């Protein structure tokens, strides 16, 4: 099997349904098709270079940001606007088709994840896989997330860097 699409923590494998391998191109295609995308960003983005990547990707695609854990503070301190939710809290809201959205704009149809702890993100993605048929999930971590609908593959930093950079053009 292709090591790039084995879940980063290999035992996350959960059943027959596996994420599609996303390249920056397919990821961008998904973003283009989405009507109400959301960007969920975890604590690994508290530091550079990920924080800047997140900032720029959010800007170019006009993505509202939800920060999980205590990521909010670093973002706030660096002037990046975000709303703070626990990762389980936001997953819980995302699975409710009636949820009004972080700004009252209604439920999202695409959720982009980056920078959350791998296994708790896997669990949250599992929730959405099973209980949120109304939205797609896409992860752009350097780890393959088999519970997402689409995910970047496992990569080394350099390649990931390139992938993220590519995300910054429409």
């Amino acid at each position, binding site marked *: 099997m292709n090591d790039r699409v084995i879940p980063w923590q290999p035992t996350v494998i959960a059943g027959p349904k596996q994420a599609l391998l996303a390249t920056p191109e397919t990821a961008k295609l998904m973003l283009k098709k989405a009507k109400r995308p959301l960007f969920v960003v975890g604590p690994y983005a508290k530091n550079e270079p990920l924080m800047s990547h997140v900032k720029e990707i959010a800007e170019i695609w006009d993505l509202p940001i939800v920060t999980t854990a205590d990521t909010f503070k670093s973002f706030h301190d660096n002037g990046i606007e975000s709303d703070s939710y*626990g990762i389980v809290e936001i997953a*819980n809201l995302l699975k409710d088709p009636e949820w009004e959205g972080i700004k009252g704009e209604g439920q999202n149809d695409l959720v982009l994840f980056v920078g959350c702890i791998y296994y708790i993100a896997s669990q949250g993605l599992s*929730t959405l*896989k099973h209980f949120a048929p109304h939205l797609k999930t896409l992860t752009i971590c350097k780890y393959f997330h088999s519970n997402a609908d689409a995910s970047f593959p496992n990569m080394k930093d350099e390649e990931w860097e390139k992938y993220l950079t590519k995300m910054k053009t429409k």
Partner: protein
Amino acid sequence: MNIKINNIIKTNNEVGDNLTPNSIKPKDFKVDFWKSKNIEFSFGEIIEDNSPDSRDEETFMGPTPKPSGTDLRSWDMKLLERYPPFYAPFCDMCCLCTFGKCDLTGKKGACGIDIKAQQGRFALLTCCIGAAAHSAHSRHLLEYLIHKCGSDHPVDFGNNIDIEAPIMRTLIGKAPKTLGDIRESMDYIEEENLHLLSTCHTGQEGNHLDFESKAFHAGLMDHIGMEIGDVSQIAALDLPKGEANTPLVELGIGAIDHDKPVILCIGHNIAPGVGIVDYLEDNDFEDEIELCGICCTSIDITRYSDRAKVVGPISKQLKFLKSGVADVVVVDEQCIRSDVLEEAQKKGAALIATTDKMCLGLDDRTNDPVDAIVADIISKKDDGALILDPEKVGEVATKLSLSLSKSRKSLKSLPDMDKIQEDAFKCTECEWCVRVCPNSIPIMDAVSSAGKGDFESTEKLYDHDICYTCGRCEQECPENIKIMDLMAKIGENNLKKEKFNIRVGRGPIQDVEVRRVGAPLVLGDIPGIVAFVGCSNYPDGADDVAKMAEEFLERNYIVVTSGCGAMSIGEYKNEEGKTLYERFSGDFDARGLINVGSCVSNSHIPGVAIKVANIFAKKPLEGNFEVIADYIFNRIGACGVAWGAYSQKAAAIASGVNRWGIPVILGPHGSKYRRLYLGRSDKEETWNLTDMRTGKLIKGEPAPEHLLYAAESREEATVNIAKNCIRPTDNNKGRQIKLNHYIDLHKKYFGTIPEDVYRYIRNEKDIPITYKNDVKEILERNDWEPRELVMEPTILDFPRDE
């Protein structure tokens, strides 16, 4: 007024002519009698116990003595309405029957089950297993202690404690006066556990909420089980009976004297430990032999003899075994590594298994002469022995340790650093060690640096158990590098650092303390009780637990702890080298740090909440679960924290705690329990309360916001703990205090005043003075309007007009 409420509960929960007849109910509680006389079954009723062992006492009896699962179902459904289960499947398939496996991703299985019910079912199964672990342990202990002390041995904790067993009192409907009396509670939970486990069978329950209700019931049974265990051992073995200032005992790998013969106990059941302590004392070996323990059994042995030492929590197990320091390893039950025999063998240590829970394939030598057993092990004829008699364990372990410590000198140390470095040098940086690590800690960097002679990164992982030595990296390593040996060796190099202390587990909280803190707790002057419990498997080391404890202690919260949590807290020192146990008193009061004891002592945590309801608020306990839980839920700002989720026991404890109405915050691994109970603060209608004083429906607040929550970081958890201590009964001053802490912590860790603070402000008097202007801005932004304070909040059904 309460009586009316109870009448309503009664109509939902009549213990009547139904198909869930609890075996003892018809006999002991004479439902038919009440029925035929048409007497309403509610508290306020005086019931005479006419059973043979009646003590001619009169008891107020509530509607649900010895409740079956369905008797408390309506309460569960109220909780579940506010906090619907949040499922995060760990596996998409069900593998429980041979129709399968079935893929449940948007599909029903061959038996018709869907993914929600399957998750609920798994939660129930987990809680049943967890409850069974504590309860079977307690049954063992109870029978052992009855065997030792007699069934008429009194359950009496002295003048300072009237309610020895608040959980049994509430749920069984009576107070056990003797060890023998406790058997009735044991029988009851055994029967209930069977019914609950049965429901996990293919083709039984089909509704996820009903599975959750049953999981709550399993959790509650677990609490009875734990209380039975601790109450029995306190009573029979004269362990501390709630004294606040129990002694400090030594803790840490560095505290163990390598030069003496070392007996190591691992597990949870005090019985073999008692056998060893007694034998050492009776034969004056106390100074000669080092007795130490890992996991709860060590905590309990120190309650029996403060000369015993605590190596540490479960995360120390492989480190210490690999070090070879132990000459004899005595395992009892629970949280023992399955490969303990293999690891002991590697180091030439003798292994004694002592319970039916872990026999390890060893010959049963229970009825053989001590000398024969010892000889067979010393001569390497046997790897160890199964000895089911605790006294004999004491003698065999002692004799083995005396003999082995001489021959094992060379095995008591690890390979040289050179060897270790040579081994680590084989690392090819494939990174699989990191990928299979539960926490993806930088183990590859550590190994790879060690290969180059730099051990600092390994040391960092050793300290505070950032690596808790589960050993998965070593199992995966394609170069077969002995990573756990490396880890253990680092410890050996830093023994001096590894010396700490822990306050001996005190058991229950005394009545006088409850009386003192009752009002400040319910009104909010003491901002909350925070309980750090559960296993290791911490996302980023044990320090996080201690830091959280420190934070809340310094903020006047009451901090309670037990088991591995209590040990983790003991392993943390401030700059002056003092542990939290040295810095804070053991009083159950603001700024008190209370170690209740081992796993089974966790029962004293809901226990104290129950006692507040009874001693402070005069709520009758017997058969009165819903009223008590409703009281706790709405008034006692307690919050459990299980930072290092691991076992089924922890899941059972949390479910029981939740059913009592106490929220629990888990660490990120808690998400792997697959089920949380999350509230929706955005759905205002779910927070309504009834005021029992007036019967009016009143707008409430998300207090507590979640019932079972998994936080991704310590900072997130800390803020959430503070928030989840808010309760509807806080008076203005209390609410100010609580909000002050919440805002403080939010500012500290998130940089801002939390936007949702407006939800917790009922009128302007609730606003913390320090933050007045900022908060007012938030209120305005959110179209805030003042609302009524509730006097006697309840979520129970209020009597309808009839």
